[in-house]
């Protein structure tokens, strides 16, 4: 049986905010991981999950701002947040480097999220005690 005294986690979010509940459930889980004294190695956004890293979401003021909540949580706890580059480019999520490379009119990646390849997920899968996925759940 795994040692439950301490563990490290990679969290993969594949559901988008305002389309699925995935970012909300993942945040509740992530906060509990930190509260219990465990470590989150990284949060990896994949597929539609990359929309969580958008800096341009403007939800109604009486709704939770999930991208804002997530970026604050990641910053506070110095947890790396990574959006998969292939998912992000197809879905219109770019940082300044990609904006330049593809000659796009703007960048919309929210700090502290970064863009990187699936290797980040592979590393998490190999090194973290547990890798959990938060999918859309129709």
């Amino acid at each position, binding site marked *: 049986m795994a040692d*439950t005294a301490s563990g490290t986690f990679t969290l993969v979010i594949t559901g988008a905010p305002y389309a699925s509940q995935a970012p909300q459930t993942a945040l509740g889980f992530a906060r509990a991981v930190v509260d219990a004294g465990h470590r989150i190695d990284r949060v990896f956004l994949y597929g539609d999950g990359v929309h969580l890293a958008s800096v341009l979401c403007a939800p109604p003021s009486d709704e939770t701002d999930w991208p804002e909540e997530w970026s604050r949580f990641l910053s506070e706890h110095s947890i790396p947040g990574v959006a998969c580059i292939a998912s992000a480019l197809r879905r219109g999520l770019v940082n300044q480097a990609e904006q330049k490379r593809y000659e796009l009119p703007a960048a919309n990646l929210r700090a502290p999220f970064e863009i990187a390849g699936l290797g980040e997920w592979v590393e998490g899968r190999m090194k973290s005690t547990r890798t959990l996925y*938060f999918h859309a*759940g129709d």
Partner: protein
Amino acid sequence: MTAIHTLHILNKSPEHPRASRCLATVSPEDALLLTGNGVLLLSTQKKPVTHKVFVLSPDVDARGLGGMTGNAEAVGFAEMVSLSLQAQRVISW
């Protein structure tokens, strides 16, 4: 602490084809944790083969199912974290 082989986390509604696939692969030595729309299983006649069924409280409350948990154990995110470490492996359906 009971030994759990696999923790199956199911967030799909009972109608979703993946819900049936999940339930078909749960063994008696596994645990099932219902989250999101997965908690709607509580309101149906479908019964998983394992006795270790957990449901995520905030999702149960949102859907007005507080009175229908039956033999399932309502847990919070802290217990979800413990369960995920306690189990030998986790499948997020």
